[in-house]
């Protein structure tokens, strides 16, 4: 999972990034509104955290432009504007949720989880795929009912694969969802993660299939 954070206050941004990191969400942070367009053009984000009062632009207009250009990534507005009309305006401009500063970290995390769950094609809490179970709330994997031990990056890759429910997803897209612009990793790192995941799934009826030239897809063994 990858988030785009547009927030001009460094302290708030750092806390948000820290919190996202604890949720195993990679994030890219920009202090100014001008970077928004370039960022959404270059990266694939699962959620956008947007402040309204930016030094160079108004969050509302950035959002409006993004939505009218067809962007459909969930957007969570965080703003110190408390009036209902601002909240209504934010939601009317295409925000998915509106959090008034100051807010508790727990509430922020709950809202982010809710938005990500809403966005995934699977509205239910648990996605089952063969022997593999994925709880969207806790973001934990169970393999044959047992905890699935893996690194955060491996989990992130597997998360993308299980949410696609067997559809093919390109290596670049996977990389775009798990690496931030600052990460120096290239797509070959994905191959390493896939290799490790395959090893850990070896004893189950689930495997990661390679579609040459297209990407990867999660498969149940009896499908193969």
């Amino acid at each position, binding site marked *: 999972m990858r988030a785009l954070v547009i927030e001009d206050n460094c302290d708030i941004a750092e806390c*948000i990034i820290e919190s996202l990191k604890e949720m195993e969400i990679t994030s890219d942070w920009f202090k100014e509104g001008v970077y928004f367009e370039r960022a959404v053009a270059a990266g694939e984000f699962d959620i956008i955290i947007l402040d309204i009062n930016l030094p160079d632009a108004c969050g509302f207009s950035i959002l409006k432009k993004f939505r009218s250009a067809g962007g459909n990534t969930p957007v969570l507005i965080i703003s110190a504007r408390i009036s209902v*009309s601002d909240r209504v305006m934010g939601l009317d401009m295409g925000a998915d949720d509106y959090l008034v500063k100051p*807010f508790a970290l727990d509430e922020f995390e709950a809202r982010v989880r809710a938005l990500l769950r809403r966005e995934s094609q699977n509205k239910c809490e648990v996605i089952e795929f063969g022997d593999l179970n994925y709880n969207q709330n806790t973001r934990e994997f169970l393999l044959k009912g047992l905890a699935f031990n893996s690194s955060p990056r491996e989990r992130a890759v597997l998360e993308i694969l299980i949410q696609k429910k067997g559809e093919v997803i390109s290596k670049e897209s996977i990389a775009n969802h798990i690496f931030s612009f600052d990460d120096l990793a290239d797509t070959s790192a994905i191959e390493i993660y896939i290799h490790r995941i395959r090893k850990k799934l070896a004893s189950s009826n689930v495997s990661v299939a390679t579609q040459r030239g297209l990407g990867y897809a999660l498969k149940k063994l009896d499908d193969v």
Partner: protein
Amino acid sequence: MTFNKLFTTLQGRLLRWLILPLVVLSMAHLLNIYITTKNTSTELFDRVLVNLALSISQYAISSEGDFLTVDLLDVIKQTTNDTLFYKMLGPDDSFLVGYTDLPDPPGGVKKIHNHIEYYDVIYLGQPLRIVAVSTLSKHSRFSGWSKTLVGQTLDDRNQFIADEVYANLLKVIFLIVLITTLTIIVVNVGFRPLKRLLTDLNSRDIHDLTPVDTNGMPEEVATLAGGINALFKRLVDQIGLSKRFLENASHQLLTPIAALTLQCDLAIRHAETESSRKSLDRIKSNAHRIADLAKKLLQLSYSEAYAFEKKDNQKLDLAEIAQECANSFKELSQRKHIELELKTAFVFGNKTLFVELLNNIIDNALKYSELEFNVLIETFIDGECSILQVTDSGPGIPEELRQLVTERFFRANKDTTGSGLGLAIVKEVVLVHHGEMQILAGKEGIGTLIRCSFPIL
């Protein structure tokens, strides 16, 4: 118009400036009339007196010093209402007839033919005008100097002057009354646009700062109204400016507090000891109190600004807003129950403000309610009013403090955490929507009942 108004109102001043000179002018006019009439009457009456003296003298000489006959006396009496006195000294003191003690002229009688002299004396206790005529007669029997004195009381002359002055006084009074009446009418007509402007300003809501319509006003009044409009505009600008300042200030305040609470949250998660966790908790709760204060100040400034701008008005259902607000509170305070008895009750106003009102009133009720008791929210229509009623089950507010709790930063219980702005916001919102707020004891004397009534839509 009372006497006082004559000195304080513009109309009174105008009247004073017109009527005072008019009265002075009239006085001068009357004085002039008096003097001229007096001169004229003296001249006329004196002439009559001279003729009389000459007739008497001729008669006396011709009758050789006899008293005047009844016929002549009748004729003389018909000419005047005054009492006449005469004295005749015949030629070369040959005889003396009439009132012999009638005083002679101060300088004695001159021996010049047909010399006439007038003088005033007091005779028998009354003022007299006397004419003394000396004649040189060359009668067959009498010849030599004779003198005739005729005195006349002043009644006729005075009556003549009085009549003349009185007639003029009547004219002047009529003129003054006419001018005063006309002035009052003209001034009233002239001041009517000014009075209309005053009525317009007086009948306004205290927060109404929309410009006065100057269409159809006379130029002078339009200038005044223009001045008022310019003042209104400056006021509106100033209000806008202070509103923006407060918004910016609150925003600038909220942002670092947001950072502070987030950092606290993170630090609490990673706290290694129980004591540092406790300290961080305390820091966090204080940060939340500051944030609450800043938010409420912002809400207050918003509702104050709304009072002047009156924008975003719409038809609102109190029941609907109460339901929405109660739902968001239910998520936060599961241990306290919010009971709802909501009937549709429409009001006309600003939704943001009504949401703030509900949030603050519910927050207040929850804060003061005992854990196991309920907060009851009711909306209904009572006669001409839409009512919102919130009852808590707290300790209640003593009657003497009920007035004070709606003041900013007042807190009945010093231990309770709160900004002291909650009920101030509620009251402000109620007032700007022309409503009324009452704080009463709850049902059966338990807790507090806050009743807000609004004019029905």
